[in-house]
């Protein structure tokens, strides 16, 4: 699993760091950053991504395919 935070979309809501504090934190600009991509179970990381108010967290599988947000058909 690969995690990407789109900084231009992130508004620093901090929901991700509340749900998965071992994976996400806010930097000095109050943008989410990944501090440890393996710091929580995949399901917790996915929950953090799904809770983002602006869909700023992208999740990719090991093959590089985007799994969240689900790409538009």
């Amino acid at each position, binding site marked *: 699993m690969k995690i990407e935070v789109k900084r231009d979309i992130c*508004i620093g809501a901090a*929901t991700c760091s509340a749900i998965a504090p071992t994976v996400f934190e806010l930097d000095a600009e109050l943008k989410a950053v990944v501090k440890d991509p393996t710091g929580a179970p995949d399901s917790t990381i996915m929950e953090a991504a799904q*809770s983002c108010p602006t*869909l700023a967290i992208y999740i990719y599988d090991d093959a590089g395919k985007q799994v969240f947000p*689900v790409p538009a058909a």
Partner: protein
Amino acid sequence: MNVVIPKEYPATVVAAATLTPKVVFLQLRPEKTAPFVPGQYASFLLGNNRRPLSYASLPGEALLDFVIDISPGGVCSQFAAHAKAGDAVRFLSPYGRFVMNKEDTRPLLFVATGTGIAPIRAQIKDLLAQGETRPITLLFGNYTERDIVFREEFEALAQKHSTFTFIPVLSNAEGAWSGETGWVTHVAPRRISDLPAWSAYVCGNPPMVKDMTALLLSAGTPKEHIHTEQFTPAS
């Protein structure tokens, strides 16, 4: 404050009205109570997109108020511009840390521009409804007189509550405007002589928030008494 994990809420549009050529007022009835604190926001689920919108109403009210700048013309603008009574919507809530510090005893300066007034409207109405006795001043910056949303409401609140002062500020005043002109950053130190003694809650476009923060810091307002929310137009 602790971050509450947001939940999804279905709601129905009760009213959609044009407040100004650029701003739409939306009122929703949620199927169940969506808890939030004044100053917080919801994230609207719009197709494959999400857009944050601050609550302009008070917690516990049956209807939820939002004000949306539709000038960007994007997903949220389109949603708001075409919303009509009966439309079904969904949102996640609550989000945000732009909330009142309950430990604070200082007088309160609120500064808003444009639709940045939404969370501040909720905060001020909540404070006044709770019988707050501290001085509360609202500096509300807009381009022209017709851009001042909730003007009559704030004027009525100022009439009713001697502790509340409403100061609209226009950067492009037209006609017979006799109120403040220019930028809120210019008006604040002129209208509040002991600025460093106040706590400030600032919400609006990013340049204003940045400039106001710099002004307050340079005036001597402690950083912990400056609360900000950058409020970009909904795209």
